[in-house]
């Protein structure tokens, strides 16, 4: 016993180091499993409050540019407002009455924390449960899609950014309708890759890439970006398309959380059929 205590005393520095380091790495691994974490992130209230103060200042500096963006968004959403409604019954003449049921709701909010320089980036929004934001809702900005809500507290939400290697989004080419999955390679915050497109289709530089609407999160037709280049991989049936994002993630500020009112219905149905 005495020699054990002596041993611990002699190597206490190294033992403490190993203990703390193991604990830190345990935290990192636990955290990388990003679906499971719900604690100590920037949606907690202390750091959330600090960030919203900070954001108050930085927003003022970008006022002019952001006003422009808001006008743009107002215009595009006036135009889109009919698209946010889904036909409830088949009829040849459109009547703006109860034949439409609302499918999507847009909750306006602001980005109060953001990063683009990590391998897996996250954003924090100043809206949470109280504003109707819950997990797995989509986040879009006037210029295009932003990400998916990972977690929410009463007043804040943390969002998995498109610039996160763990996130895959179903996207399609607007011109031809072929779809693939969108993924970030962790290198440049302006570009993402569209994978799994068959190699026989024609893709031109500048083609518009939009969300496919096949997942239950994003509405169909939200802008993602424009084709920048095509990479053929030898012998593979698929091509890789490089897409320039339409959103500038470095100065993103006003966004909307999209709540799909019919999501549960769709998921229940899909689960039911996949169990059969």
């Amino acid at each position, binding site marked *: 016993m005495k020699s054990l205590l002596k041993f611990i005393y002699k190597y*206490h520095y190294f033992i*403490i180091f190993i203990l703390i*380091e193991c604990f830190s*790495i345990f*935290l*990192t*691994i636990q955290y990388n499993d990003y679906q499971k974490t719900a604690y100590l992130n920037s949606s907690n209230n*202390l750091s959330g409050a600090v960030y919203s103060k900070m954001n108050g200042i930085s927003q003022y500096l970008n006022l002019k540019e952001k006003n422009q963006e808001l006008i743009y968004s107002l215009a595009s959403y006036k135009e889109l407002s009919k698209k946010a409604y889904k036909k409830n019954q088949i009829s040849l003449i459109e009547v703006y009455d109860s034949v439409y049921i609302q499918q999507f709701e847009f909750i306006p909010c602001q980005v109060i924390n953001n990063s*683009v320089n990590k391998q897996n980036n996250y954003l924090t929004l100043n809206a949470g449960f109280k504003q109707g934001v819950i997990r797995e809702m989509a986040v879009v900005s006037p210029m295009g899609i932003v990400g998916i809500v990972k977690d929410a507290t009463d007043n804040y939400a943390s969002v998995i950014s498109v610039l996160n290697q763990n996130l895959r989004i179903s996207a399609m080419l607007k011109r031809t309708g072929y779809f693939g999955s969108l993924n970030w390679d962790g290198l440049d915050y302006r570009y993402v890759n569209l994978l799994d497109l068959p190699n026989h289709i024609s893709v031109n530089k500048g083609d518009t890439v939009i969300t496919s609407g096949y997942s239950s999160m994003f509405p169909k037709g939200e802008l993602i970006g424009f084709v920048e280049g095509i990479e053929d991989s030898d012998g593979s049936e698929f091509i890789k398309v490089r897409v320039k994002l339409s959103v500038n993630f470095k100065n993103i500020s006003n966004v909307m959380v999209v709540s799909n009112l019919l999501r549960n219905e769709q998921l229940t149905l899909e689960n039911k059929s996949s169990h059969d």
Partner: protein
Amino acid sequence: MIKIIPRNLFRFVVLVLLQVWVLNNIQFSGFVNPYLYILFILLLPFETPGWLVLILSFFLGLSVDMFTDTLGMHASASVFMGFIRPYVLQSIAPRDGYEAGTFPRIFYYGLIWFLKYAIILIFIHHLFLFTIEVFKFGSYYLVLWRTFLSTIFTTVFVILSQYLIFRK
């Protein structure tokens, strides 16, 4: 001597806030980011016991982690840096050792000594941080490149801080 504790606490808070409010928003060429908060570990007095350096490093890293959604990453890198610190101090000690009442700063031991001290520790910290961030060993040249660039920027900030704020 009594003043050392509040002074270091103040430095801790200021460096963490500076890091999350200002420096995390600076990104040279996309993904290079100066991590000035580790200046706190660099400037701890020589006499600080080893276990205290480790614990302080852990909480320093954890505070930065809480703001950047990277739980554990900065903490483990800082703890590793705190662990290496006494060995670096030992290996670059001046011939007659460190005098009592002095601190690891340019003012006491000169620019060359401080540069050696800072660059070695900053490089170790950044290498650990970026390695644990990607968490795999593919495309390792990117990690080395980021470590190299970020080390330069952090060192520049550390040296500047020595001339501007901690002159004495």
